[in-house]
């Protein structure tokens, strides 16, 4: 059994417009993936593809008008969607920990960081406060914060971005989670600090035996740090598989254009940009959502494509899976 099994997860934004008509944005459409214990899964895709929303749906952190309308999320054998809010709340920060994008604004500005670490430990694990305090210092040490005893008295606004992100990682580690979800953990950081933070997280997953989901725009990060990749587009995982396999033989036209449009590829002239706008989630095209932008599109693309296996653990959702010419994405 996998640690995390997501099956046909569908999340919609259901709201009423000015004429009191119900409007539905289909933000996640049949998202399915698995994550084994101890593995790292990277989510990539453009803004609005549903990467963060997938994470929020899993953790039950959706805020109205977003709502899960179908599918199942099995974490360690428990269905998270059916789970009552209090139980889910007890699981968050405990077995499923999150590291978010803006560490400095996410930490509680009115509580010293040591106390915040203690607070999350007390909320989930409990026990004597001195034990929590000791663990807080250990975790600060583990994430490479120098002089933890002193730094635990610091206020969040006194930390640099990189240091604050380390605190967030320490927060995540406090209760020994099985799954760490890192939602764009390095977007706001300097490039040099980015690498440090990612190396740190990768090392910690191995040391503590955690599984990790990294959500990012950056293909390089996924290529470097994850075992598996899931490429998202318009609320669907269009291609997923082992990182090596997907980068060596990208199948879906969208994956190909993503890889082709990395700055390095564009510089050496072999790349191509994918034109067009992301599809309107209120009004998705019938069939394949990419069809209006895809150069391979034919009449058959107006019908929904199915998920096909094209290699060991390598899946693609395209009518022409495995049948498209090698190389070159849409020009």
């Amino acid at each position, binding site marked *: 059994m996998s640690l995390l099994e997501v099956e046909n997860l569908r999340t919609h934004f259901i709201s009423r417009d000015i004429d009191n008509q119900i409007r539905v944005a289909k933000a996640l459409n049949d998202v399915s993936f698995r994550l084994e214990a101890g593995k790292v899964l990277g989510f990539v895709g453009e803004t609005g593809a549903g990467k963060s929303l997938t994470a929020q749906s899993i953790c039950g952190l959706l805020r109205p008008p977003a709502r899960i309308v179908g599918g199942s999320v099995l974490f360690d054998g428990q269905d998270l969607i059916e789970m009552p809010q209090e139980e889910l*709340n007890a699981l*968050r920060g405990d077995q499923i920990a999150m590291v*978010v994008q*803006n560490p400095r604004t*996410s930490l509680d500005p*009115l509580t010293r960081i040591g106390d915040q670490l203690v*607070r*999350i430990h007390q*909320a989930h694990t409990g026990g004597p406060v001195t034990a929590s305090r000791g663990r807080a210092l250990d975790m600060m040490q583990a994430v490479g914060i120098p002089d933890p005893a002193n730094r635990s008295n610091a206020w969040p606004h006194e930390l640099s971005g990189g240091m604050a992100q380390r605190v967030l990682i320490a927060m995540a580690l406090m209760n020994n989670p099985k799954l760490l979800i890192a939602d764009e953990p390095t977007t706001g950081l300097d490039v040099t600090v980015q690498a440090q933070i990612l190396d740190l997280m990768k090392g910690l997953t191995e040391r503590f035996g955690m599984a990790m989901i990294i959500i990012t725009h950056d293909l390089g990060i996924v290529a470097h740090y994850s075992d598996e990749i899931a490429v998202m587009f318009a609320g669907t995982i269009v291609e997923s598989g082992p990182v090596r396999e997907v980068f060596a033989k990208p199948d879906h036209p969208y994956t190909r254009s993503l890889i082709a449009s990395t700055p390095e590829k564009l510089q050496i002239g072999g790349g191509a940009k994918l034109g067009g706008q992301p599809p309107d989630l209120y009004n998705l095209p019938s069939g394949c959502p990419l069809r209006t932008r895809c150069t391979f599109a034919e009449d058959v693309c107006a019908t929904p494509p199915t998920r096909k296996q094209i290699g060991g653990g390598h899946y693609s959702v395209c009518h022409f899976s495995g049948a498209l010419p090698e190389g070159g994405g849409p020009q």
Partner: protein
Amino acid sequence: MSFTRFLVRRTLTVIPLLLGVVFITFMLIRVGGLDPVGQLAGPTATQAEFDMIREELGLDKPLWQQFLIYTGNVMQGDLGESWLSNRPVLDDMLERAVISLELLFWGVGLGALIGIPVGLRAAFRPNGKFDQTTRVLSLLGFSIPTYWLGLVMIFVFFYLLDWAPPAIGRIGLMIFPPDTVTGSYLIDGLLAAEWEAAWSATTHLILPVICLAIVSAAPIIKQTRAIALEVLSSETVRYARACGLPERTVRKLVFRNSAVPILTFVGTEVTGLVGTMSLIEYVFAWGGLGQYGLNAIVRGDFTAVQGYVLALALFSVLVFLVVDIIVHLIEPRSELS
């Protein structure tokens, strides 16, 4: 910067501010043509009498000389004499300030005590039943004219129901006020163990305090709700939920993070309510500073008006100083500059 240095510096910045206020009120009143001579002299006065009074008051001197004399006097604590009461304005005001502050304290205190929890609760469930009800109520509180509310309350609770004492002052007519210690009948009565007087003072306080509380609670509810809603949608709270902190902890966090803006707002509320205070004091014949100022304006008692405006400015400055100090104590990010 140390706390005492901060206090000293903050207090020093008050001086140019007050000088500015002195200048503006002085000029506004002179330019505005408040001329007391006519009223002082009476309808049958001759030109010679007019001139005499004018000379006596120093109004024949050029404006800049008058201003310098006035400023010099103010600096020595002499705000001039009110021709309405024939007493120094400063004495008049000191006597009445406590009376008004008592009303303001209970009124805004009660308003905040109601407004803040109500606003918070409404924010935790936006558009719920509680939120919708309190939104309508606070809109009502906003739109009711204060003097009308006071009059209706007197009509209902004194005239119709006879629950409240008549609105003529701060204590019953048949009761001897306690010896003056603080100036507040309630506190003085308690200090002197004159229970009857203290009780009478309390019953007289109730209606104006409720009136002021309604007027001040309405904006506090609205503002608290808005502030708490913003905190609730902040990354801090979203992260707290992602950490699986219990709901009680999250609410505490929301409250603590809303405290500074709410406090600042209540501070501006307090200073903004002085106009309302005048009306409430007038309706309830309270005899405090607000009524004094209103009376002085209506009757053209310009020394009293100047003193009143100066007192209000000083009051605002003090309120903001207190707010700043409290903010500094609860907010680790404050830089004290």
